[in-house]
């Protein structure tokens, strides 16, 4: 199948190095301590953060740092064919673990010993790149909850199809069987914390694809930063009215 046409356009009309439209909103779940929704094209996820709060299972309490938990789930209606997924399937268990460890890398857990932070992410609409979107949403939600963080973790994926590196794969491109590289970075430190990749790729091409994904992460970061600043602005204004 042709994923990049001779004019250099992809199936959805994007250029190879073009990202889908990003949209984000903060504070979408009123009961949660922090929440955000994040859209990358047709992929839409929502994240809610509770904490820091008392550790529920006492035996997991840590004396020197906070316990971070994460639960990833996909809504039944999120994919094309509607199916009831068992909650603890292997894929979502793994993604939960990956998101948790990625967020742990940026949360300053040692500042909140003996407490627990819960991150719930749910995919409302899946069109490729769900784990990236979840990480981006979780970052926003954590920031909204006011949890101390080292940096804003952002994530983006890139792939390689028709011998062209492609940024931010959608579902069709993702399931084409080509390589799929998901990267999560700490942009200010310029360090890679999450890196997942599958399918076969020569090493030098991999380097290019990873570089592209990192650039994508940086673009996401500037967008997220804007959203957060905007949010902070409105908060300030609201405070101004209150006083």
């Amino acid at each position, binding site marked *: 199948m042709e994923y990049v046409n001779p004019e250099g356009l992809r199936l959805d009309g994007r250029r190879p190095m073009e990202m889908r439209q990003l949209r984000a909103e903060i504070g979408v779940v009123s009961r949660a301590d922090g929440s955000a929704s994040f859209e990358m094209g047709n992929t839409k996820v929502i994240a809610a953060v509770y904490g820091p709060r008392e550790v529920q299972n006492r035996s997991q309490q840590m004396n020197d740092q906070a316990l971070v938990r994460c639960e990833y789930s996909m809504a039944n209606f999120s994919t094309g064919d509607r199916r009831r997924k068992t909650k603890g399937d292997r894929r979502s268990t793994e993604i939960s673990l990956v998101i948790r460890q990625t967020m742990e890398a940026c949360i300053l857990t040692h500042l909140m010993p003996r407490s627990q932070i819960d991150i719930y992410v749910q995919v409302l609409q899946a069109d490729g790149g769900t784990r990236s979107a979840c990480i981006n949403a979780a970052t926003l939600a954590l920031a909204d909850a006011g949890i101390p963080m080292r940096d804003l973790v952002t994530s983006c994926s890139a792939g390689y199809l028709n011998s062209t590196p492609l940024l931010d794969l959608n579902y069709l491109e993702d399931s084409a069987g080509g390589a799929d590289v998901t990267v999560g970075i700490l942009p200010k430190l310029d360090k890679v914390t999450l890196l997942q990749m599958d399918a076969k790729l020569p090493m030098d091409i991999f380097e290019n694809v990873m*570089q592209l994904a990192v650039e994508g992460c940086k673009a996401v970061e500037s967008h997220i930063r804007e959203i957060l600043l905007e949010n902070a602005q409105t908060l300030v204004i609201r405070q101004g009215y209150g006083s």
Partner: protein
Amino acid sequence: MEQRLGNTWRMTVNEKKFIESALESELRVDGRRPFDYRALTIKFGREDGSSEVQLGQTHIMSFVTSQLVQPYRDRPNEGTLSVFTEFSPMADPSFEAGRPSESAVELGRIIDRGLRESRAVDTESLCVVAGKWVWSIRIDLHILDNGGNLVDAANIAALAALLTFRRPECTLGGDDGQEVTLHPPEVREPLPLIVHHLPIAVTFAFIGDEHMVIDPTHHEEAVMGGRMSVTLNANGDVCAIQKAGGHGVMQSVVMQCLRIASVKAGDITSKIKTVVESYKTDRALRMVKRHAPINAVDVNESGGKAKQILEGQKLKSEECSVSQSDDMDVEQGRINKRTDKNRSFTGGPSSWDPYSEGVNTDELKATLASRGSVAVPMNLDNLGDTIRDETKSDEPLSDVNPVSSSTDSAGKEMATSKEKTLQDAVKPKNKRKKKKSSNTAAV
């Protein structure tokens, strides 16, 4: 709560500090350098498709089994490959019985991704009837002892088991050509899987701010801030990477890891190949033993004579004998002699390379080995009337009658020639192979 405190294994501050500070002078607690692997031993079970891997103190067993199932709807002409992990509670105090833990799931997914997404195992050849029956290959990984770095050890165990696994041969029959007949291993030699390349997982642990080590022990895993498992093959193709969060590393470090890993992958690949090869010769040898008593020949005697015959043959069949490779593992020294002898049996026209992309060359050889084995005791019986008629022995073999070949030949073709049988057996087998493959294609 107190009991729970007692059940977890814990580390002292001293150990943590020491592991980190020793790395500053590039030293590791067990005396290795940062980029050294621990001792690796691979053993095989008596049955095809089982392996046991020991990497330092880490001990993993792997079993491969197959089953005919319906294919997935979106992939009607591909077999399936699945990986299951079991973290036995005996392996580590933190493993609990019951539902697989997060780390068990992650381990399974890493292995799975490395093997499946890179198409290491040819799944299309596992299709029997498109849309109806395909082979489902299941890899079970049992962690027996957790000494750290389960990923690499489990990956090696899975590969070793896959390389030695054989599925029963099946043919299509019936009116519509849709009926599947399974042939038990005694009747037809089971077929090995087609493995295109070996994706080797190499795990790095990031300790402290800038140290990294390869193949971490469980002490180092307790200290590390992040881990990255890189799966690549000997050609330097990256097949999978898993770095699930944790300490951030520079992009350049990632690339450095990849380069180191590709060297390590080469080492491990050759190690796996050597042991698998010796397993195969060993296996072929077992077939010799299995068949010997059928002919009720005095075992000792037959052994002795067989050797003589074989030696004679080795000389004569030089043109088809394989290069007596010198890369045999040292451990195999004990059976080296027998291996040699066996090789002269199996010497096929092609080189002894089970990894060549060609279809089933190793299967071909293994069957030859078994065939040869049948032939030897027979020769013993009829040592007197040697070269009776080669043509006769030749025909039934070259016939398109592979089903009963080995057993039949044991029964009927008692009177076969001495040296010729084996060589002759090689050629028709070869032809038959081609014929059969074209047959299946036609179906």
